[in-house]
């Protein structure tokens, strides 16, 4: 009986794997399938199952205390379930939207397969309880991502972006691997709880080795979350990739980077024990301020909507970094970390939706700049209302859950005594309204330069966008479904 429930706990990851295998089978029997609806349906259904199971496990409290599997290599707890929910929802939306986006492109089965395998890697990242699993899961998530960015292989931008992404990714993976080896050298273990147990001693005996190891691990995560100083791949990769892949990377992949960072730093490097080597809370404070500010200011100067969203996604990584930067030991620490999770959850919907709208615009060939979006509101009012919701919610206006999760971060940081982080967030958030509202202004207020005619309204893409918008709005009152689960999960981790 015990084994059954343990396997059930891994069911979200299982759902990803099974649907990936199903795609393998379909592709073997029917290569270059013309049944693209089937492929998209399998992907979306698999991801939706993962999402529903995660939510059910999370809300039923089955894994509240955390269940260790495979000798402690994996752990399923509230936090891992919150994040598998995020991965499931983002993958479902992206899978649905891709049905229309890639309808004229080859290698469809591979495309969906790579997305599902990356999602599998991400759900393992959420549960990884040892540095070895962290590394393997991270590579499992990363390698498909490189290929996905290069999916438009006849498109120069796509290939260039993938190459840049891959090179920076390979470099940061090696930094991470080296950091892990240094930590192993200093503590003699790869299991996160064991590292934590040995951290105090390691910090005294091997101050330099241990400290440099922690900083290198931090660098590896900064890459995955697109945070300063390893953010510069993000604008190119998000701009060059097919828009649904950009949505997937900037929402799910970023969240995956954060879940590992949350677990590794909170569990393996208790700040009291490692403060002698390196004060990572301080390091995250610096990174948070730099990432927020740089992302927002760079976003404000863009003319290309997708690139603006890419920089805004860096800005949002900065907001979530507050969740680690405010772990000062003061106030309600569960609130701090839990708000970071909630922000990623809301962000998963609103940012995915925004990139999917860009996918819709690419589908219509309307162009990429703000100017090209002029007057879209007249031709596609429903999609444009959804995009307006995404933009305002990203900016933190209270039309969607984005307002509340930012507010939680502010309350948490003030409670933790780092009110200035909250203030930087508030100011950045107010500034961000400027560039988000440019999209809104273009869609509804400005007149198009030349008349255009939209002929096809892709159903699946529309459904994905509208669903993302509905959930974004519903998360304003409805965040109460998740907030206590997230705060409890965070508190359990601390």
């Amino acid at each position: 009986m015990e084994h059954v429930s343990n396997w059930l706990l891994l069911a979200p990851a299982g759902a990803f794997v099974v649907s990936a295998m199903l795609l393998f089978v379909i592709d073997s029997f029917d290569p270059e399938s013309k049944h693209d609806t089937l492929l998209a349906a399998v992907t979306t259904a698999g991801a939706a199952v993962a999402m529903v199971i995660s939510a059910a496990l999370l809300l039923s409290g089955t894994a509240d205390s955390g269940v260790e599997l495979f000798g402690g290599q994996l752990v399923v707890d509230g936090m891992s379930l919150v994040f598998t929910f995020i991965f499931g929802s983002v993958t479902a939306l992206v899978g649905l939207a891709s049905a229309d986006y890639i309808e004229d492109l080859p290698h469809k089965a591979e495309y969906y397969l790579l997305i599902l395998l990356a999602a599998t890697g991400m759900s393992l990242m959420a549960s990884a309880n040892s540095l070895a699993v962290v590394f393997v899961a991270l590579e499992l998530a990363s390698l498909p991502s490189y290929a996905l960015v290069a999916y438009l292989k006849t498109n120069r931008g796509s290939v260039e972006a993938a190459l840049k992404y891959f090179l920076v990714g390979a470099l940061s993976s090696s930094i991470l691997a080296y950091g892990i080896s240094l930590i192993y050298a200093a503590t003699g273990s790869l299991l996160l709880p064991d590292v934590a147990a040995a951290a105090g001693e390691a910090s005294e005996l091997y101050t330099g080795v241990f400290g440099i190891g922690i900083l290198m691990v931090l660098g590896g995560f900064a890459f995955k979350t697109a945070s300063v100083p390893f953010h510069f791949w993000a604008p190119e990769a998000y701009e060059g990739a097919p828009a649904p892949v950009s949505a997937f990377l900037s929402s799910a992949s970023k969240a995956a980077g954060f879940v590992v960072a949350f677990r590794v730093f909170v569990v393996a490097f208790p700040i009291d024990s490692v403060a002698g080597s390196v004060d990572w809370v301080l390091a995250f404070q610096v990174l948070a301020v730099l990432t927020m500010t740089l992302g927002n200011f760079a976003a404000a100067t863009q003319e290309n909507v997708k690139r603006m969203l890419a920089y805004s996604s860096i800005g949002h990584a900065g907001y979530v970094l507050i969740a680690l930067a405010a772990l000062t030991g003061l106030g309600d620490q569960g609130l701090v970390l839990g708000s970071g999770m909630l922000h990623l959850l809301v962000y998963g919907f609103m940012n995915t939706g925004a990139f999917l709208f860009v996918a819709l615009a690419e589908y219509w060939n309307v162009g990429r700049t703000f100017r090209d979006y002029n007057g879209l509101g007249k031709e596609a009012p429903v999609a444009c209302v959804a995009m307006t919701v995404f933009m305002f919610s990203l900016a933190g206006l209270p039309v969607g859950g984005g307002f509340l999760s930012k507010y939680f971060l502010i309350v948490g940081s003030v409670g933790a005594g780092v009110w200035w982080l909250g203030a930087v967030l508030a100011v950045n958030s107010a500034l961000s309204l400027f560039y988000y509202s440019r999209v809104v202004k273009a869609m509804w207020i400005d007149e198009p330069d030349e008349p255009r005619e939209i002929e096809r309204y892709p159903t699946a893409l529309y459904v994905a966008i509208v669903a993302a918008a509905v959930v974004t709005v519903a998360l304003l009152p409805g965040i109460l479904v998740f907030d206590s689960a997230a705060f409890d999960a965070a508190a359990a981790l601390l």
Partner: protein
Amino acid sequence: MLIEALIALCLLGAAVVFVAPNRFAHKLAVGFSLPPLAISLYMYLAFDGSGNALLGGDIAYETFAQWLQLGSYTVNYHMGLDGISLPLVVLSTILTTLAILSAWTPIDERQSQFYGLMLFLEASLIGVFGALDFLLWFVFWEAVLIPMYFLIGVWGGPRRKYAAIKFFVYTNIASLVMFIGYFALVFGLGDSVSSTGLPEIAQALRAGQLGSLGIIGPDMLALAAFVAMFLGFAVKVPVVPFHTWLPDAHVEAPTPASVMLAGVLLKMGTYALLRFNFTMLPGQAEILAIPIAVIAVISIIYGAMLALAQSDLKRIVAYSSVSSMGYVILGLIAYTVYGVGGATFQMVAHGLISGLLFMTVGVIYNTTHTRMVGDMAGMAEKMPVTAGVFVAGAFAYMGLPLMAGFAAELFIFLGAFESTVLPYAPLFTAVAMFGIVIVAGYLLWAMQRSLFGPFRLETDYEIGPAALHDVVPLVTLVLLIILLGSAPMVFFESIQDATLDIVATLGGGI
């Protein structure tokens, strides 16, 4: 549950109208605005609250449910009305219906989106006046910006994009400042409060439970929070020198949006000042009484003089709002029953009167396609009803007895004159009264030049009487203004009941 019904009906209407065909969106919108109007009137008649909602009074139509748990704070869904907020809810529903009617003529493109946004605006406004938890209130407060941004930006005049973004950015930054101010108070109260609810915070503050926040002591914290919230709301009101967004927004906005902007949105600022600054932190208001009164008087006089200098009818009405809102601030800082009650009365009265004047200017513009005073003369000859209404509105503004403006200003002057909180109160009151003379000056002058004398207007348009659906809102508003002005006490008593507790702390007096 009646407030929720109001909001839900408006939102439902907004959604239906938004996707309805342009052809009959206007009629559909009026239809959807009528049930909320009827419900709000019923709520006014069946009102059984007493006292101030923030200070332990009986809250009418209350709904309470826990929304979020944030560490040691709960955030609640808490709605309810008292004698201050109920009149403003009714004002919102009345003006929305009338503004939608007044939009039938001028709005000739993207009608369904326009009317959808108007109903969405109505829902947000009702939420602002009904919410009794800060976060809930803030959600509605910010939500108001969105429809107004589009109403100005899409259907406005030539410089609409500039005006819309200026309005949006100005008021959004102001919201941020105010938000920080309020949360400084919440954190300063520490463990003595367990929610962000307005009643709980107000009562804890008045019980003197404010502690230190970091190195800032309680007195300094309260003063800083007062200033931050005052600045935030002052932009919305607006008072000089934060008024510069207002003429741009008003001149560019389409008439129905101007009606809502002047009629209800400006009142959000004064309503919030009353609810937050003057109810929660009376001690700080007393300390800052002279600067606030100076700002009020400057707004009254300078706003009126700016109006005097304009030749665009819409700008005249827009600047005169700055002046009228100055009276509200003066009434509030007086901290007397008549002062605060009169200020609330003025909010409603000015909502009706400025709505009326904007609509009248709109009707004239629809026909003549100009708003310049110098371009027209003798309009009374061609448009007798509109001209008559304009005269009535102007006299209401000047404070002609038996009209709402007179009652409101009389209450404010009575209250301000007797104030024990404001030093040199008689002096401030006397200077403020002088503002009425300027108001009379610019309105009479503008009317004389545009309405009377021999008819003169160089235009290719056919000039004739306004359509019935343009005249109905105008006449309705005139009747309401006269009703309010001839029987002010009926209305004043419910307000007074809610303001007694506010003034009681500082000795009050009538």
